[in-house]
């Protein structure tokens, strides 16, 4: 191979690989990301069953019910809308009624119950999930910070 051909082979291989990577990233973005909603969005947005989304809001006071021990149901609210959620597993340490929460999962066809497979754990008691805080503030909900925890 001449010098030019060698260089072309290397550049060609590089460009080919980069194209592949870009395509892969675009495909992954269309498949593997989850949009964030609060309950009142869901009335407007039509989320097809089976699509992974993140649902955030406050855990409605008095709504947490433990089923047969490991399945928990609760209602996520943004004061304008409510969505019932079921979750099987262990809730994060800082999960409390009246506090912010982010759940991830899907709606099952023919049901309005959101089946969560993860409930976002907070690292710190002063931390309200940012997505939730922003949206709730936009809707005029007064946020209780760490004071209510004490």
């Amino acid at each position: 191979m001449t010098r030019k051909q060698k260089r072309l082979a290397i550049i060609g291989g590089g460009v080919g690989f980069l194209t592949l990577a870009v395509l892969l990233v675009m495909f992954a973005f269309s498949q593997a990301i989850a949009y964030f909603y609060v309950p009142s969005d869901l009335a407007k947005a039509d989320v097809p069953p089976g699509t992974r989304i993140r649902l955030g809001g406050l855990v409605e006071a008095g709504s947490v019910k433990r089923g047969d021990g490991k399945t928990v149901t609760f209602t996520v609210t943004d004061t304008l809308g409510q969505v019932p959620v079921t979750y099987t597993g262990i809730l994060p340490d800082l999960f409390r009624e009246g506090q912010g929460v982010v759940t991830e999962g899907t709606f099952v066809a023919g049901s309005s119950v959101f089946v969560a497979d993860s409930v976002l754990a907070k690292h710190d008691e002063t931390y309200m999930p940012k997505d939730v805080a922003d949206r709730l503030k936009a809707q005029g909900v007064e946020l209780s910070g760490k004071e209510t925890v004490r």
Partner: protein
Amino acid sequence: MIIELGHYALVLALATAFVQAALPILGSRLNDRALMELASSAAVACFLLVAFSFAVLTFAYVTSDFSVRNVWENSHSLKPLIYKISGVWGNHEGSMLLWLLILVFFSALVATFGRNLPETLKANVLAVQAWIAVAFTLFILLTSNPFARLIPAPGEGKDLNPILQDVGLAIHPPLLYLGYVGFSVCFSFAIAALIEGRIDAAWARWVRPWTLAAWTFLTAGISMGSYWAYYELGWGGWWFWDPVENASFMPWLAGTALLHSALVMEKREALKIWTVLLAIMTFSLSLLGTFLVRSGVLTSVHAFATDPTRGIFILAILVFFIGGAFSLFAFRASRLKAGGIFAPISREGALVFNNLILTTATATVLTGTLYPLVLEALTGDKISVGPPFFNMTFGLLMLPLLFAVPFGPLLAWKRGDLMGVAQRLFAAVAVGLVVGCIYYYVMNGGPILALFGIALGVYLIVGSLTDLALRSGLGKVTGNVAWRRFSGLPRSAFGTALAHIGLGVTLIGIVAVTAFETETVVEMKPGMTVDAGGYTLRFDGMRNGSGPNYSEESGHFTIMSGGVVVADIWSSKRLYQARRMPTTEAGIRTFGLSQLYVSLGDQISEGGIVVRIWWKPMILCIWGGTLFMMAGGFVSLSDRRLRVGAPTRAKRPKTVPVGAAE
């Protein structure tokens, strides 16, 4: 008084850094030796001043001086001593001070051990280091002063976030910063080369030990952080593709690429411009990581405080250094002479392949990490990019590299023989497949991909050993000769093999855990048993206890195998008094390389409790592999070729290896 001295020392450090930033460069322009030599003394002085400042803050923490706001906000008089000390960097201000301390520590190391560097290069490198130091000292003094007083002093502190009250905090951040910030030296070398408009193979030889050291520490820091998250959070996961994790992973990927491209540059004088670019990119990603983690744009345990002025300040630093570096690169890169040419199939070609894949993979991680931030800023849509995205993109893209890794060291420089190498690796492929099949059989099936994953890991290990075996002529010469040749191999050959073996070991761990992990969530009452990973767990009941600053409820589990008691596990939930914050202390028991992991949920009636039990097969391989990588890094560092003081083969019997300084 002593607190004010610490503050004052930091101001003096700023002044020293200004001197170090300006005069040596002037000296290199005017060819004035005195001005250039100023750089070394200034660097050492700056380090001593920052170290004093850091010691003062540590003193305030140890003596629980709550008149210092930072101590009051993050400490508690009842906290055990080790957490008082590690708490120094368990908050925004203190961690930035640690960042700065490590930065000036590296400058001082360059000043001390870089005696054989050309005068102008050394002066310029230290000046660039000082620019960074100036920026971060200003940041600390203007927006994040750890020495701010609180009058009157409160009687008791607010305590440290309980999740951080762990020995992990004592180890993880310093190691991570040694890596993160260590890349600043490579950055400074790159900028200095651009300023001088001159670069050669010797440059690569000088930079390589710093890259290796930083890379090794970053590996240790990430690995430690991963293990810490695994045992402390109680979620049983070891990597979440969390933006904060990505922030440290991106410099690691770019740094790995840099390590390999510097090799080509050192041996063959090729890829010069690319190596300079990589050095800039690696530290830029470190700075980006610092911005993402410290500015509060991401919410996580790492984002201590969200003060917008800080975010903007770090963003300004980021724009200045990254923008400045790339502009300088654009203007000056053409002055650097391009290096030698090589065939696509060659050692150089393999290393280019490595760089192509690593940088592309870095770019995908970067895209996935920044896309949600960009999208939200542009459209207001909030999305989350989670593990599925990264597994699909990063995972697939890295696959060809894993296949290629054992090929690299076996290919000849300039022009290699791909078929010949493939033949030599035949044994490695065969061993890999056989082990994969055996493991698959032992595990009673499972996803077929797991078989190939394990095979790939074993192939990496055996393939790396093949290189050592071939180089010592095993099988061709007598055992004695082979042994002599083996022990005569350069240390860097062992370093390469160890690091590549580590990659294989980590891969095996990842594959085994992903494919064969079992998770059971179950409601247990005392006396009940559950099976996991071939063991039977019996729940014995709960017990209340307390520690110095928390109270806890612990569940006791007896582990039985075939009816015989083999071990037991305590798993607890703690409530930290000062912050009224609950945490989960998972119970973990190790069996060989596998672990049983028990974490507690909510209590239910009649002494029952929800329990989550994982069986994590071979999980220790994940971190065990990184130990191999670190060992590889240190062994390579001890190679005499890489010693900073040995640019040529000249006889210098007692040069200090840079590794000894750490």
